[in-house]
């Protein structure tokens, strides 16, 4: 187990370096002089620009610059925004991460609960109309693009019925439409997986044994069935959480939520490279951490892993 954990940690660090190096190189090869971008409309003499270039280390080779970046990042300094001159990237990222985590954790919890319910119900009603209906619904859910879904829901629930606000993030009511939009796809994917996994488990010998012991149907399904069925689902939940965290660009843009997704997209449009890099880093960390936490959870759910080497 320890060796495995060390391997995983090494893998995370490696992936982080790779992903940031790639994003870093791309941002440095990008057209447009960062200093000119920082200067905006002001006319700044060449010698001042050169001095700035030296101060920010922009006259060094890319790998050296990347070295500086990593060194600073390890000390919690991700540089300053080009667009909001003088503002630290971390100052922009911090509140955005909090906003994103708040509304997306609602979406994630919602997605998992509905997915498990749908998946178990379909598996128990295998090949009945409940199963077919739930799985057709799931496939439609997988297929609907989030912006199309968001458009429909805003039109129906916000404009026609006037039940919910169109956009913003001030009250819990503001979270409802974005959370449903974001949760739909992962929820649909998961419910199919829960169903497949549950179907496999239902015919195992230990299920028959549990029933033979005289356990109630509910106890058999929840304690013996679901626990084993959720095992393969867990990996996917980890990946999905990572994807949800990084997949919020469109939803946050549509609903005007000042989270990390909208920050990232705005930064791209403004060519604010330090912020783009910061957002990439934050999202990569979120993705890798969520898969890591899931790996650890395996040990909790499945005692076989805890005891194995």
């Amino acid at each position, binding site marked *: 187990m320890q060796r495995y954990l060390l391997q995983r940690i090494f893998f995370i660090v490696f992936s982080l370096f790779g992903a940031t190096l790639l994003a870093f190189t791309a941002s440095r090869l990008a057209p447009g002089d960062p200093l000119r971008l920082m200067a905006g409309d002001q006319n700044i003499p060449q010698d001042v620009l050169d001095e700035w270039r030296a101060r920010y280390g922009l006259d060094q080779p890319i790998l050296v610059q990347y070295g500086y970046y990593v060194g600073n990042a390890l000390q919690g300094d991700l540089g300053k925004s080009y667009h909001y001159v003088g503002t630290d990237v971390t100052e922009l990222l911090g509140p955005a991460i909090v906003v994103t985590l708040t509304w997306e954790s609602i979406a994630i919890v919602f997605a998992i609960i509905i997915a498990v319910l749908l998946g178990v119900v379909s598996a128990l009603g295998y090949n009945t109309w409940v199963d077919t209906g739930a799985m057709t619904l799931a496939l439609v859910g997988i297929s609907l693009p989030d912006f199309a879904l968001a458009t429909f829901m805003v039109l129906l629930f916000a404009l026609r019925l006037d039940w919910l606000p169109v956009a913003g993030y001030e009250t819990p009511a503001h979270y409802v439409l974005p959370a449903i939009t974001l949760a739909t796809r992962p929820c649909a*994917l998961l419910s199919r997986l829960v169903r497949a996994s549950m179907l496999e488990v239902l015919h195992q010998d230990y299920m028959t044994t549990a029933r033979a012991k005289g356990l109630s149907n509910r106890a058999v399904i929840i304690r013996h069935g679901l626990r084993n069925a959720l095992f393969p689902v867990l990996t996917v939940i980890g990946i999905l959480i990572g994807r949800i965290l990084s997949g919020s660009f469109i939803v946050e843009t549509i609903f005007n939520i000042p989270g990390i997704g909208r920050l990232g997209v705005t930064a791209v449009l403004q060519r604010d490279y330090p912020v783009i890099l910061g957002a990439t880093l934050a999202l990569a960390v979120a*993705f890798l951490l969520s898969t890591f936490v899931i790996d650890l959870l395996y040990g909790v759910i499945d005692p076989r892993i805890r005891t194995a080497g």
Partner: protein
Amino acid sequence: MTDTTHSTVKSLDLPRPSSPWIDAMRRMMRNRAAFVSTIFLSGLVLVAIFADFTAPYDPTLADFASIRQPPSVEHLLGTDEIGRDMLSRIIYGARISLFVGVFVQVVATSFGVTLGLIAGYYGGIVDVIIMRAVDIMYALPNFLFAVFMVSLLKPDVGSVLLTLSLSTWPFSARLMRGQVMATKNADYIVAAKALGTGDVRIILLHILPNAITPIIIQFTLGIATVIMAEAGLSFLGIGIRPPNPTWGAMINKGREFIRTSPHLAIYPSIVLGLTMIALNFLGDGLRDALDPRMKEVG
């Protein structure tokens, strides 16, 4: 005597010519959802290919005398904010979406499958290098990466194709590698090796055909993902630029007028949604038909 023999032969109910592929196609056509989806997609492909004939108007022709008209006999799906015919724009938009989806999948799958084959077959350092590259691509926030790349390049079809191909190949590489790992120690591969068959021949004739099923399924489902990603880029205003009609851009523009003229956003959303649903049903149908044993994996 001769007669008997003759009648026996005659009465033998010879099975129709069959192969695993024909069987699979038959199984698939029995799946109603997949069947309807195939017809829908074929229709869409034909309409898109022959857009010059099927679209009633020039998709970029503005008519300021009739802006944001609701559906009528002249304009079946109405007109947009500068009076262009919505139906024609949706038809030409289908051309772009389908082209991007198929092209990216062809490039990314070929690339990914080749790398996956090499990684899985040869193992060792080659495997480590290729798979670590895949890991890095997985860790990168995919969509932000695409948005970023397209914004760095010229905003045209080429950049979108390149960017989406770059962010899509790791999926088929990982899938293919897994398939190779599962088959490469099978007895028939060992036998082929013992007979002195070359690596290329083993890979092309023995490993690839046995691993092709999940690749075909992933290819189909991947088209949906790529179309969605392209629409997402267009929706954010990055990528393929106006006046080229793309579904994503139409939906985005339409949202500005959603209070007064919801049809601007609704019709492209419906067509995009239906296309996604059809592709997913088709992919699912293929999965069930090609490999009935295969379990659903995400």
